[in-house]
């Protein structure tokens, strides 16, 4: 039947006018990704323009003074101590959950991750509102460690889940004891994950504003915020921002160096043996107690304090303002999340499907955003709009949404990348060879495959925006409150009772969906391959 049809259109049936566009998709993608990279790096550019506007001499003078040294000392010692603590706590808890026969592992796995979803400024509020000891350096160490250790826990747990149990067996057979096996093989295998987590921890501490403000601990971010928002001293804010960005760049750039060249190599089929769990034996009870204390401190205190203040604070629920703030939060976060997901798509496509040098470089460059704290991004955008764009969008939601999209682009990229990897190009080719037009292929193959991942990426960014405080404080339109800014206003007035409901709402909208999303991304790899 087909043979006759084909023969009926002799002798030439090829479309005469298909242009030679073999290289067009990469070019188009390159262009789009390049544009995205420019947008993402715009704040850095604005910052540099600002700095050069003030004059190099002025900036240098502003940097070269005792204040900078104090801030540097405060920031660096906090970063080092918290990162080290997080590395230890995150790795140990991940090992306990993934590699031992700890009873109730699944419940612990959830409880250990939830603190990550609670914004640092809420944790800080919880602690500071019930204890005067929690302030300054020791307060910052306590609060930040409890708030961000999951950044180490999550990647290490994932890495241990995928680790090759054969390596531990090999180490034992080579005469290493249990402890040395743990330190040299287990930790060694998870080294990349631990390091990656530590980098994230350090970057979060550099960027954190709200928690330190509450605790009265002075870092670069708190000082920049004061200079810009309170004293309107733009050159100083700009000079300090530059130092902060350089610090972030150092941390980001140091990671590949510290990671080294070792890669997990595995020969043979991917069939994975079940992990043989270590027996805790008599240590079971003490381990349970330690984990319970950790969860109580990280989760119980902020939550408990909020509940306490809500009922004991003497204030009552301001329902209207809660609804109003919630609406604006949802609106801004939703638009920003859609935008960030959209921006991430071409970069992810380029990185996954055309892993050439240009694509890798572009993808890398977008990660530079990680070195830019939200405060710096917000200041750069706000200042630039005011000064050079004739106030375009100033005091409107546009700038806030742009700042969100830039700030959380790396988060969106992680999600979109995973989803694009889910739709390998071979599937689209197979679909086309079955006679489907490109638009049909997109609707019937590509979209169903990447859709859930895109939705997940959207949700990730949405949650991050909804709980963002620092950039929001700078860029929120006048007369508008979001959940975070309203909480902040009450908290600043020491109206704990009125702040508490906002804290609880923020916890609720952050924690529950985060858990669902974490489960989703956990399941991704196992569903990725078509070959079992």
């Amino acid at each position: 039947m087909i043979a006759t049809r084909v023969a009926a259109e002799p002798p030439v049936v090829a479309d005469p006018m298909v242009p030679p566009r073999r290289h067009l998709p990469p070019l188009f993608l390159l262009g789009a990704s390049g544009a995205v990279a420019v947008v993402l790096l715009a704040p850095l550019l604005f910052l540099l323009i600002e700095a050069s506007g003030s004059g190099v001499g002025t900036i240098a003078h502003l940097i070269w003074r005792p204040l900078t040294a104090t801030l540097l000392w405060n920031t660096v010692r906090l970063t080092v101590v918290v990162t080290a603590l997080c590395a230890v706590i995150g790795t140990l808890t991940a090992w306990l959950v993934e590699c031992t026969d700890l009873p109730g592992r699944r419940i612990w796995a959830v409880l250990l991750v939830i603190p990550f979803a609670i914004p640092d400024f809420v944790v800080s509020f919880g602690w500071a509102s019930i204890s005067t000891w929690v302030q300054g350096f020791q307060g910052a160490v306590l609060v930040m460690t409890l708030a961000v250790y999951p950044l180490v826990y999550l990647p290490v747990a994932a890495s241990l889940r995928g680790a090759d149990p054969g390596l531990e067996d090999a180490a034992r057979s080579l005469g290493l004891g249990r402890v040395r096996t743990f330190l040299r093989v287990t930790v060694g295998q998870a080294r990349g994950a631990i390091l990656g987590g530590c980098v994230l921890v350090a970057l979060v501490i550099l960027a954190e504003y709200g928690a330190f403000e509450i605790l009265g601990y002075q870092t670069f971010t708190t000082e920049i915020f004061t200079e810009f928002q309170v004293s309107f001293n733009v050159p100083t804010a700009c000079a300090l921002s530059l130092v902060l960005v350089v610090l972030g760049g150092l941390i980001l750039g140091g990671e590949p160096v510290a990671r080294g060249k070792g890669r997990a190599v595995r020969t043979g089929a991917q069939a994975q043996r079940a992990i043989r769990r270590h027996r805790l034996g008599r240590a079971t009870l003490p381990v349970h107690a330690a984990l319970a204390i950790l969860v109580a401190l990280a989760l119980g205190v902020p939550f408990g304090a909020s509940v306490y203040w809500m009922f004991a604070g003497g204030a009552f629920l301001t329902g209207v303002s809660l609804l109003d703030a919630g609406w604006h939060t949802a609106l801004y976060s939703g638009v920003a999340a859609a935008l960030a997901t959209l921006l991430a798509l071409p970069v992810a496509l380029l990185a996954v499907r055309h892993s050439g040098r240009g694509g890798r470089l572009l993808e890398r460059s977008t990660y530079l955003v990680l070195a830019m704290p939200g405060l710096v991004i917000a200041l750069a955008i706000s200042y630039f709009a005011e000064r050079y764009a004739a106030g375009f969008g100033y005091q409107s939601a546009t700038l806030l949404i742009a700042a969100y999209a830039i700030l959380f682009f790396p988060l969106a990229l992680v999600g979109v990348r995973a989803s694009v990897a889910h739709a390998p190009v071979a599937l689209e080719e197979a679909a086309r060879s079955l006679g489907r037009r490109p638009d049909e292929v997109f609707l019937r193959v590509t979209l169903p495959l990447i859709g859930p991942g895109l939705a997940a990426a959207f949700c990730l960014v949405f949650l991050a925006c909804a709980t963002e405080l620092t950039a929001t404080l700078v860029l929120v339109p006048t007369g508008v409150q979001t959940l975070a800014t309203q909480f902040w206003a009450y908290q600043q007035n020491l109206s704990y009772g009125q702040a508490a409901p906002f804290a609880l709402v923020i916890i609720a909208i952050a924690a529950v969906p985060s858990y669902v999303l974490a489960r989703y991304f956990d399941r991704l790899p196992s569903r990725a391959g078509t070959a079992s």
Partner: protein
Amino acid sequence: MSEPGAPIAPDRIGSTSVPAAAPASLAAPTATEGLTAADLHKAFGDHPVLRGVDLTVPDGAFAAVLGASGSGKTTLLRILAGFERPDRGVVAVGGVILDDDHHHLRAERRRVGYVPQEGSLFPHLTVEGNVGFGLRVREGREAEIAELLERVGLSGLGRRYPHELSGGQQQRVALARALAVRPRIVLLDEPFASLDAGLRATVRADVRAAVRRSGATAVLVTHDQDEALSIADLVAVIRDGVVAQVAPPRDLYESPVDPDLARFVGEANLIEGISYGSAAETPLGWLELRDGHRPARQQVTVLVRPEQLRVAASAGGGPGVAARVVETGFHGHDALVRLVMEDAAASPMVARVVGGMRLEAGAQVTLKVTGPVHCWPTPPAGDASPDLPAAQPDAGPG
């Protein structure tokens, strides 16, 4: 059906690097039937991958494209499928041009069935959804899918999702999916590479049978010479971006175009000798030449396949050349024995013997060659030129 008027330059068609040795089992193909690729060039950046590939596959034949990794075989397949466009050259199926310098028929309009390397089933669709993906008609759809699944031996698994299938089952579904659109050509990209050795043989045989029943012309790409020789009617060896030889498996194995190809397709003993008409004098004695007549007193390189060497214990004292066993590689059904000849400085030889035969290292044996052998004139300077033709005009000295 195949009009001679199809605008293909006649000098390009059917020109393989070997004088057309059409397999006897196949009807002599006219140039426009089946699949024709002529003078295909493709480069990625500065890196040429295909440098003038010519390949003709008769209608309904099962061809294998055999090549080492990086030889360009996958690129050839992707061009045939329409995923890549050749820089130069012609692709035609059944007399209809799919690619030439001015035309490029897009993949979705070629009706070329494509079975990707890892199966590449749509993970969000069931087996039925996958198989029916290319079907556009509604009525009879279910019956058709059921028939296709039965043809590949997967009846009753239609409701499963790809991740619930074994690797072999996934490959069968991928084949059924490709056959559903009743393609004239089926392209298979190393479809068995990821399967367990035990599974491979059965899946291979079933795929072969299913493709044959569909009547489609098939092109299988592989780096596995056993696979190519066992599955195909016609094997094309691709080397450095050109087709080195196209021949039925037996001809390819017995009469490869040059010593390099002989070593690539199976184990080969290459020994020097002097030809006298239809026989050659070698360290293994007088050997009958396969291709008939050779000019007298010509230096030749003779190909002796391991299974052509009869090994006998010396105690028997039979006729043959004395040799000593160096080592034996036991494979169960057979064994490969490495030997050195006692009196010659020739390099070690490999012989294939039945697995039950016990030959310890150091054992004295005698060697005898059975059957006719293939030979090539030895290049004078001693450098093995790959382009020597298998036949030469009778113009030798004497």
